[in-house]
């Protein structure tokens, strides 16, 4: 049906410290098709950012280490190629938008130069061409190109994030990883930035991995969603399936915790309990201590992927044996 841009197979990333070993990403598999936007949703510490860094091969090492798994990008396993080839891919074919635009720009360089840096690194061409492209990128994200000589502190937060996006898109990457691109921005700017990312996606045929914990943002821009919990993807499917036919108790809890406009509620519906200590995960299903539908079996049996509807996978024992007819 569609062409895969990125395929992650059984990726395990572990952080080793002197005291403990933490599997931040535990055996996840993920596929992203061309021009598709995949939302990666989960609580703080679920392993979303680590997954993104693993794709870029930027997991801080030490203490982080990719233990096993394969990441195929346009046919090549990113975990096997040399550092030099990887540098060509970073910023060229895969680029990343960071969470906080306030700190993602170098405070002592003018923004134009920072955009130019990525162009000069990846496109062979004269300085004049790079300058021209810089101007074009700035205009594209809606910043007056006369401001290319200004420093990051002279821009507002939303504009800085747009500069970051300009840097990320400057070399027409085939995959854009956006790590909570709107978390640090207020809502009106969020809408602007998301709208811009969507239109740029159409223009450049870019696939996007959107990391967020905001389901509203997901609903706005994503085609597919993967819900992460404690280093695992526990539910994945198309946006329609997940929003209308959610199966995993954690996903249901996540949606329930969004306050409803129409009904008056005194308290927000939270999922009881806390994220488990990643160094000391519960046996069996990792969600069982907090799960309202926990059974005796959940406490010792690790659930496997179950396809409850086409392209809709759930890791929960409740749905074992209810595979969608093929």
């Amino acid at each position, binding site marked *: 049906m569609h062409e895969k841009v990125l395929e992650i197979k059984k990726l395990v990333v572990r952080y080793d410290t002197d005291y403990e070993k933490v599997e931040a990403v535990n055996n996840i598999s993920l596929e992203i098709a061309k021009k598709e936007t995949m939302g990666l949703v989960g609580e703080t510490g679920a392993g979303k950012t680590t997954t993104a860094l693993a794709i870029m091969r930027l997991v801080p090492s030490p203490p982080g280490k990719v233990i096993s798994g394969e990441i195929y990008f346009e046919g090549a396993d990113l975990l096997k190629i040399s550092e030099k080839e990887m540098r*060509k*891919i970073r910023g060229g074919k895969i*680029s990343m938008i960071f*969470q906080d635009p306030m700190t993602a720009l170098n405070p002592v360089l003018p923004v134009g130069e920072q955009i130019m840096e*990525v162009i000069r690194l990846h496109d062979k061409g004269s300085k004049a061409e790079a300058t021209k492209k810089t101007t074009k990128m700035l205009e594209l994200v809606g910043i007056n190109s006369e401001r290319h000589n200004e420093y990051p502190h002279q821009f507002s937060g939303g504009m800085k994030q747009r500069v970051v996006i300009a840097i990320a898109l400057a070399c027409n990457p085939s995959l854009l990883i956006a790590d909570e691109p709107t978390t640090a921005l207020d809502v009106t700017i969020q809408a602007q930035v998301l709208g811009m990312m969507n239109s740029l996606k159409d223009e450049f045929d870019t696939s996007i991995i959107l990391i967020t914990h905001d389901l509203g943002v997901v609903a706005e821009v994503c085609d597919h969603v993967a819900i992460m919990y404690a280093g695992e993807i526990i539910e994945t499917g198309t946006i329609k399936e997940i929003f209308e036919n959610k199966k995993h108790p954690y996903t249901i809890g996540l949606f329930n915790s969004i306050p409803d406009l129409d009904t008056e509620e005194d308290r927000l519906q939270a999922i009881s309990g806390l994220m488990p200590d990643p160094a000391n995960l519960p046996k069996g299903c990792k969600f069982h201590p907090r799960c309202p539908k926990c059974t005796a079996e959940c406490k010792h049996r690790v659930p496997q992927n179950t396809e409850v509807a086409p392209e809709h996978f759930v890791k929960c024992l409740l749905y074992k044996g209810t595979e969608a007819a093929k």
Partner: protein
Amino acid sequence: MVGLYLLVFLILVAICAPIIAPYDYDDQNQEKAFKFPNREFWFGTDNFGRDILSRMIYGSRVSLQVGLISVGFSALVGCTLGVIAAFYRKCDNLVMRVVDGFASIPYLLLAIAIAAALGSGINNLMLAVGISTIPAYARVTRAAVLTVKETEYVEAARSIGTNNFRIIIRHIMPNSLAPIIIQATLGVGNAILIASCLSFLGLGIQPPSPEWGAMLSGGRIYIRDYWHMTVIPGVALMLVVYALNILGDGLRDALDPRLK
């Protein structure tokens, strides 16, 4: 600001030395030896009848030269070591322990060793001062780079495919310069002081070169009768070091946002 004015004044004096000095620093006039400050010789004359003012003016050249070059040398070497230690964590222990080793050698001993091995003179003096102040720069740089290295814009630079060398030069160094500049400014005063101290002991600049420390040393046997021969270079030395220290403090206040 006072510090800056004094320093600028000193630099001007050093540059214009041949124009403003009333006499040559080497002019001996036995008939006019041991004169107290008077109209003809503003700062008096020494035991050979040389004009102390002229010697002071020429001496400022030596002091500035020693201060700037030795600081430049040690800042360059120290910063390089500090960056290597902070950026390539595997080398950290090795580099910093070697630097600690340097820090443990007293600079006097080092200067004596260098003077004994290579002979005394202005170049070896600068070398001795430079080597003995390397550890301070290495430590300051390492600390600054360690902080900057973890910032998101360095990670962002990495994520667009920048190589390590470029990251260090373009992104890390400009953002870690503030503490290094402060250290260097304070270091110039310190270097001038050490150099004078070594010259005073006869390990640095040899007569008849007009060096403030050497002038102090030359005047010390006459201090009971002719105090001006030691007091004037001493006060000048104090003023310069003081000026550099306030300048360094001022720079720190201006560059370090945490102190505001």
